């Protein structure tokens, strides 16, 4: 017992002596004269050196507020619109774009950096929300699992309805997960209402095929998917086009080839936006931060921090992305207005079709 107590005390002392979690990254010589607050979702990530560069160049301190998932964050931004929590908000995606714009919480800012960004990413004509990165939500498959069973990866979305894939697919609940919603939107775009095989029929078939619905990405990928380190039971999972590359990157040199692959014909394009919040305390600095997010420095940092793609087309991609994590050629898309008009009804229908 004595030993235990002693070790606890040692641990406590060591913990207290540990350096603070976040040291001020601005140089000690000149105290930052201004503060910029950035509101974002929990998945936001950036290199310390990149943020430090902005702070140094602008003699500013950047404070980051993490506000839950993208939907929760948007909710909080709207709730606090009379007394904004931050100057800049990052992380609204195309599935929430219309809702965010209609709420009237953003100010227009036509950044000069927009000039080089492809038009397909610029979804707001008034530039209240500016594209920063994009990702492809796509089905990953477990190479070893399929090989062992002598199966070729499904060639199309439609093939997943084939009884041959019974009990093999994991998706996320579109009502609680952002990749889950993106995959539902892929099916809506692939099998539109009024065609001879609609997305409702597809989901009915998936249900008959014993699709497993996880509440979020972590559970789907780590607990249910066989191709991850969690060694779950099923070989197909809705994830991202960069996940195979991440498997190699995070293997600490053990893997030279990803254990998983992408089903290219199942992708939906998610674009993430940043905007200046109405009532921002420091509009000029907020503009500079938006410019910075669209600059080479920040854009090149995106792939290995957030595992999505930069919107500036000439940004060099890291090796592991070039080899294993290329964007999908022809992802499915829907316009923000289509999504806004259909979301509630689609989610309701999906719930009845798949869960009831």
């Amino acid at each position: 017992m004595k030993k235990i107590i002693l070790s606890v005390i040692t641990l406590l002392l060591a913990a207290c002596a540990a350096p603070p979690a976040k040291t001020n990254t601005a140089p000690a010589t000149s105290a930052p004269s201004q503060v910029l607050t950035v509101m974002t979702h929990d998945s936001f990530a950036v290199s310390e050196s990149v943020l430090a560069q902005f702070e140094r160049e602008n003699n500013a301190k950047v404070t980051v507020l993490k506000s839950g998932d993208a939907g929760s964050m948007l909710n909080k931004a709207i709730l606090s619109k009379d007394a904004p929590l931050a100057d800049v908000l990052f992380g609204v995606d195309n599935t929430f774009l219309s809702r965010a714009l209609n709420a009237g919480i953003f100010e227009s800012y036509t950044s000069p950096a927009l000039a080089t960004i492809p038009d397909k990413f610029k979804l707001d004509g008034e530039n209240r929300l500016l594209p920063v990165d994009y990702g492809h939500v796509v089905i990953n498959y477990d190479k070893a699992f399929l090989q062992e069973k002598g199966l070729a990866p499904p060639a199309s979305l439609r093939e997943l309805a084939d009884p041959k894939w019974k009990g093999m697919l994991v998706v996320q609940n579109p009502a609680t997960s952002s990749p889950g919603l993106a995959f539902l939107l892929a099916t809506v775009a692939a099998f539109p209402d009024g065609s001879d095989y609609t997305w409702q029929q597809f989901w009915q078939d998936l249900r008959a095929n014993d699709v497993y619905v996880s509440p979020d990405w972590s559970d789907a990928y780590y607990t249910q998917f066989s191709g991850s380190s969690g060694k779950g039971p099923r070989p197909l999972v809705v994830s991202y086009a960069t996940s195979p590359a991440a498997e190699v990157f995070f293997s600490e040199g053990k893997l030279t080839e990803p254990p998983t692959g992408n089903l290219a014909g199942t992708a939906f394009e998610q674009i993430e936006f940043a905007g200046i919040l109405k009532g921002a305390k420091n509009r000029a600095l907020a503009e500079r931060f938006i410019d910075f997010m669209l600059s080479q420095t920040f854009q090149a940092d995106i792939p290995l921090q957030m595992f999505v793609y930069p919107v500036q087309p000439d940004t060099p991609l890291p090796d592991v992305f070039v080899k294993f994590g290329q964007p999908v050629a022809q992802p499915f898309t829907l316009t923000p207005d289509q999504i806004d008009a259909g979301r509630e009804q689609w989610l309701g229908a999906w719930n009845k079709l798949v869960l009831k």
Partner: protein
Amino acid sequence: MKGGLEARDSRLERRSSQSLFPSLLLSLPALLFFALFFVWPLIEIGRVSFTPSEISRGETPLTVFGDPQYLQVLLFTLWQATLSTLLTLALGLPAAYVFARYRFAGQRLFRALAMVPFVMPTVVVAAAFSALLGPRGALNTALQSLFRLSQPPLALTGTFSIILIAHAFYNVAVVMRLVGGFLESFNPRIEEAAANLGANRRQTFWHVTLPMALPAIGAAAALTFLFTFTSFGVVLILGGARFATLEVEIYRQTAQMLRLDIATSLAILQMIVTVLVSWVSTRLEQRATAPLEAQAASDLRKPPATLGAKGLVAGSLCMIVVLLMLPLFTLFLRSINFEGDPLRYYVALNENPRGAFFFVPPLAAIRNSLLFALVTATLSMGLGLPLAYAIARGKLTLLEALLLLPIGTSAVTLGLGFLVAFDQPPLELRTSVILLPVAHTLIALPFVVRSILPAIRAFDSRLREAARGLGANAWQVLSHVDLPLLAAPFIGAAIFAFTISLGEFGASLLVARPEYPTMPVVIYRFLGQPGAANYGQALAMSSLLMIVTALSVLLIERMNKRVL
């Protein structure tokens, strides 16, 4: 004659009005705390939710209650909470009895370990359950190879049963601590008396021990019920998507539908049920309370002598090992790297190869978690002890019934309430780090009060009166009579306050400044990205959380002997 009666009546009245005043005074700090951090944010979020805007269509709670869809969710929520509570009581009560009445090797360690599940993040527990019980889990693989089956025989993933099992996994400690702590404080001599009068062991248990412990059992049942009634992660992750509790629906309406009118209506529904449950349990507890003789009973614990006693002890330990330890052990196994350096993932926790801005050294995460837990425990004991005495003395039944409300209140709704309520100076607290221990204390404080109330009530007040008669002041009575004799329930309450904070109850939906990340935050961050290193480090951090929790519990229990 008549005059004499009247005189006595007025004397009685005077006495009760005299005792009500100090009671109110004692409860004042806690009441102010609730008013500021609970009532006000809820009023504010209610005001915003029912005003039409981009995030509300201004529907009233009554329309929402009338929707059969939500009625169904309510019924399911009640049903699973009831069954979960019964299962938890069935597993926890024997263990509580065993730990209070018998002495055996490793007792302290087992009791500390039983506390660990309480703090574990749901994603991690889901991974552990899947590793044990999933289609490719250890149990199915073993059964398959044993009986040469081609299909896994157990299909528990995404079923109702696994929700109940997981709820028991989380809450058995509540029953063990609350009921066990109560039994420990009260003298088993009354049980011996029953035995001397010819009652056999079973009769003694059913007619003496059980009735005596009823108030504590009631409190444990009410708390377990409310924890499972507002269950979010367990139902969401382990139950799969087919099951939804009110809390899950509130989250869905908030984060995905952006419909605060519906979300807040459902939160109100949750609170109504909470008050009803709490009221019933309060009445039952009060009715069942009998004055008991308190004695530090740890010395009266006996080694299990008879075969039946040995069986009971063995059975309880078995339950703890199989239900609680085994899933935790699989997590620990998975945090070990079997290809190369076994502690690789633990070492990697301290490295930041990508130069990530949000990198957290593990010791900093441990320190932050412990710091918040310490503040929470201090705050909830400091506010809770006087409140508990006030409720017991002044018979503040209504207050006691309302006390459990924070536990039954949606964390989503309250989190948004903080955002709207604290947006103006001088209370511009929205992004303040203070809100984290405050949110933890809102859950811990009712827990503390309800878990010590049964003991305070049953405590034979003649001891206090005797001390007072000998000239002791109120503080001396507390520190020399109550504290030593009621040490077990008090220590139990402190442990709960501490672990509620370690497990980040109710604080997940605040606006967070990432300067003070805790252990659960780090675990979730690793589980947000794919790859072996992320998974390994998430489980390494989870294992550290288990170790820190068990050691903290042992340490707090140790204070029992040292300080008191």
